[in-house]
């Protein structure tokens, strides 16, 4: 079989095998049905404050396995649903960020910076449309890179990156925090250090967990979701309630019910294209590198966009370009993140973990180098499945292109809910979803505790993002450095042993040196509370 035969077999496998519905001559397969329902479920999960794509996937996996069983026929429907959730949640995540200033995930945090000001100016509809257009563009581009580069890219990257290089790469990712510290570097460093302290609790390799003060609840650290949700959402709710209380219910400084112009003309799209283009490349590159993740991609995309931007409305005050730069970057991570997952079996992010887990549990598809062997004499069924999966990803993208806009309009209606009803509802929803994910009241206490911390940080104008990124990167950084050190036979200079590692370290130094200049030119972007400072 040639390459095209495999592609065609994959498409046939996705569309025709295992039919669920027959509408006259039209056959709808279980795989297509599942990827579409996964997509819509994902949009709703992403749009619910406090719920995230990976959580939806974790919840869906056992149910899917139970429903479809362990036969090879189950592979595409199950993986399709998971991929659908992943894609839907990426788009949906922008909704609460734009409308309520409560990002559901750390990735969507940068979306609030311009999305929420737009919503307050009565341009919420347009902001959602920009987010959807940028997200689906970034996602589709990243998928195309996945389809064409999966067979060789991850293998090449792994060949060049050993443990010391990976440690240096983590140092480089961390240095990007310098680009987002806001106008007061000292406050940024304070926030990042705080992120490190929080991340170091309960982690480490000693049998006695670190910094837990003997509390069993902390033995596996603060629940990640509770920390994010607390700082990002609950902190924001507290600060909005505070604002509401100060200004009185009548004169609330919150969006009007009007969504304004909800369309996006071709001219407007042309203006956004350079930002989307840059960000989707940034996102795709970050996604293909091991262990960095979409939050940093969003931050980098936004920073790059901010440097390029010369329009009337500055970034941070409701520029559609800011939303485009963020959403294109964080969505472009998802496709290329699957490159190491499919071609090496190594997950690049949490979402990919569930896809590998599904493949492992069902059997018949083992993500790894063998998947992309284009054998000509015998049929490599795994390759057919891989192309089937690609077909489903594209199907989800097409659904997203066609219906995403109207779905966004529908969800945009949420903005009409008055703040005094909305804020407590979001709080209740957030606490409930945290409870479901953590599974105990401890999760709620942590969420509320970090909510208060987030509120104080907003009052004190301490940027949130450095804390969040440091919290995310702390564990991979520590593991990478520790593993590289141990593998080198405890050589203190392990990180300086290869030209690639040295290059990464040099880039980190350049990044730090340049951050001063970046800050001067673009003051006050990341500090979230400038819109709400009393």
């Amino acid at each position: 079989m040639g390459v095209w035969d495999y592609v065609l077999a994959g498409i046939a496998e996705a569309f025709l095998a295992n039919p669920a519905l027959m509408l006259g001559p039209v056959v709808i397969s279980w795989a297509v049905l599942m990827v579409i329902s996964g997509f819509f479920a994902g949009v709703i999960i992403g749009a619910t404050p406090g719920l995230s794509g990976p959580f939806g996937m974790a919840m869906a996996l056992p149910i899917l396995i139970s429903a479809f069983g362990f036969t090879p026929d189950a592979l595409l429907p199950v993986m399709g649903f998971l991929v659908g959730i992943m894609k839907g949640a990426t788009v949906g995540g922008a909704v609460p960020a734009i409308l309520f200033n409560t990002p559901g995930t750390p990735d969507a945090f940068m979306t609030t910076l311009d999305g929420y000001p737009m919503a307050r100016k009565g341009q919420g509809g347009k902001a959602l449309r920009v987010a959807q257009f940028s997200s689906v563009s970034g996602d589709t581009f990243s998928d195309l890179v996945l389809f064409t580069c999966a067979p060789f890219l991850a293998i090449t990257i792994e060949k060049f990156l050993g443990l010391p290089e990976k440690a240096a790469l983590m140092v480089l990712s961390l240095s990007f925090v310098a680009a987002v510290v806001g106008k007061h570097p000292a406050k940024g460093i304070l926030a990042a250090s705080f992120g490190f302290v929080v991340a170091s609790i309960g982690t480490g390799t000693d049998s006695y967990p670190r910094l837990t003060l003997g509390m069993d609840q902390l033995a596996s650290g603060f629940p990640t979701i509770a920390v994010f949700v607390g700082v990002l959402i609950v902190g924001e709710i507290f600060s909005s309630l505070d604002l509401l209380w100060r200004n009185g219910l009548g004169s609330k400084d919150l969006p009007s019910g009007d969504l304004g112009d909800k369309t996006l003309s071709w001219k407007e799209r042309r203006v956004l294209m350079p930002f989307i283009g840059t960000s989707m490349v940034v996102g795709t590159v970050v996604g293909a590198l091991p262990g960095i993740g979409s939050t940093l991609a969003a931050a980098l995309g936004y920073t790059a966009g901010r440097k390029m931007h010369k329009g009337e409305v500055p970034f941070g005050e409701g520029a559609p370009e800011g939303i485009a730069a963020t959403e294109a970057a964080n969505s472009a991570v998802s496709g290329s993140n699957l490159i190491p997952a499919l071609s090496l079996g190594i997950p690049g992010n949490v979402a990919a973990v569930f896809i590998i887990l599904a493949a492992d549990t069902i059997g018949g598809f083992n993500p790894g180098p063998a998947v992309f062997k284009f054998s000509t004499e015998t049929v490599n069924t795994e390759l057919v499945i891989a192309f089937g999966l690609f077909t489903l990803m594209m199907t989800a993208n097409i659904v997203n292109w066609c219906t995403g806009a109207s779905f966004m309009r529908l969800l945009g209606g949420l903005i009409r809910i008055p703040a005094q009803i909305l804020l407590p509802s979001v709080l209740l929803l957030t606490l409930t979803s945290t409870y479901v994910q953590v599974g105990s009241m401890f999760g709620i206490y942590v969420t509320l505790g970090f909510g208060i911390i987030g509120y104080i940080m907003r009052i004190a104008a301490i940027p949130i993002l450095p804390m969040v990124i440091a919290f995310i990167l702390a564990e991979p950084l520590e593991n990478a450095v520790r593993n590289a050190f141990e593998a080198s036979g405890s050589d203190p200079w392990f990180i300086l042993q290869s030209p690639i590692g040295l290059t990464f370290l040099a880039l980190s130094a350049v990044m730090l040196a340049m951050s001063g200049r970046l800050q001067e030119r673009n003051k006050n972007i990341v500090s979230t509370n400038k819109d709400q400072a009393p």
Partner: protein
Amino acid sequence: MRHLFAAAVCAALTAMPAWAQWTPSGPIKIQIGFAAGGGADTLARLIAEDMAAEYGWNVIPENLAGGGGSVMARALMDAPADGLTLGMGVTDTFAYDRLAAKDPGFTLDDFDFLTTIAGTQMGVVAKADRGWTNLSDVIAAAKAGEELSFGSMTARLSDGAYYISKVNDVNFNIVSGYKGGRAVLNAIIADDVDIGWVAGPQAKGVAAGDLVNLVNGEDQPLKVSPDAEMLSAVGVDFFFGATFIMMAPDGLPEDARTALTDAIATVIRKDGTKSNEFINRVFVLKVKSGEDAAAYVAKESADSEALLEATAN
């Protein structure tokens, strides 16, 4: 033959009341000493599901991860011994980890061990293209001066790797920070480490010929490579597999203990149950019930003590 049959029926009839008498007075909670989403968690949840389906009991699984299972152990020992709270963990928690911890907060006497459930498929794994067929080859390479790294995911396995190197008078750079066997496997595939402990996820790669089980870390043959070298061939008398085990707080009434043990052992053994299918797919069935379960933990404890002594500097 007829006598045998009659005896069997008699035995069945006399055995029956023991478990028929006890029924739970409320929902049974299974505290799982692992985070949600992994293989051990899935196993516990499927057992709960099967017990509910088979006996009509209301079984509620609950994750209590942290401290390598010790958080679950400490919570379980304080629960009432009425058969309504069970714990699902791994023998490491009660053997090596308990002995290595500064203050584990529990002893073996705090629990009634009901039955072991399943064992891992622990082996030292390398990529096939490295050209080694067994651990002896690797040791020979290390002796010849090659610097080799050895991935590990628990303190016990790191000690094991160290012990292997010590007995054979070679040096491995032991990389101990991996979380779970799959992470070690990923590191092996990515050429981050040369060899490493993997507890089961290597099976598919070994079957496909991309990976090789250099040595069998278990006390029984590995399913996918039954002829893999035994640890005794490199002078090591310890085993490094992990065994999943179900337990209750100490002092469980005899009838409840028998009923629960039978229920768990029945569902995991029975063909076609979800847990049985899962175990055969991912682990290997290992059922030692009642006294044998406690004896199994005691034996692993004694071995771990010896390992700790042997690796202490």
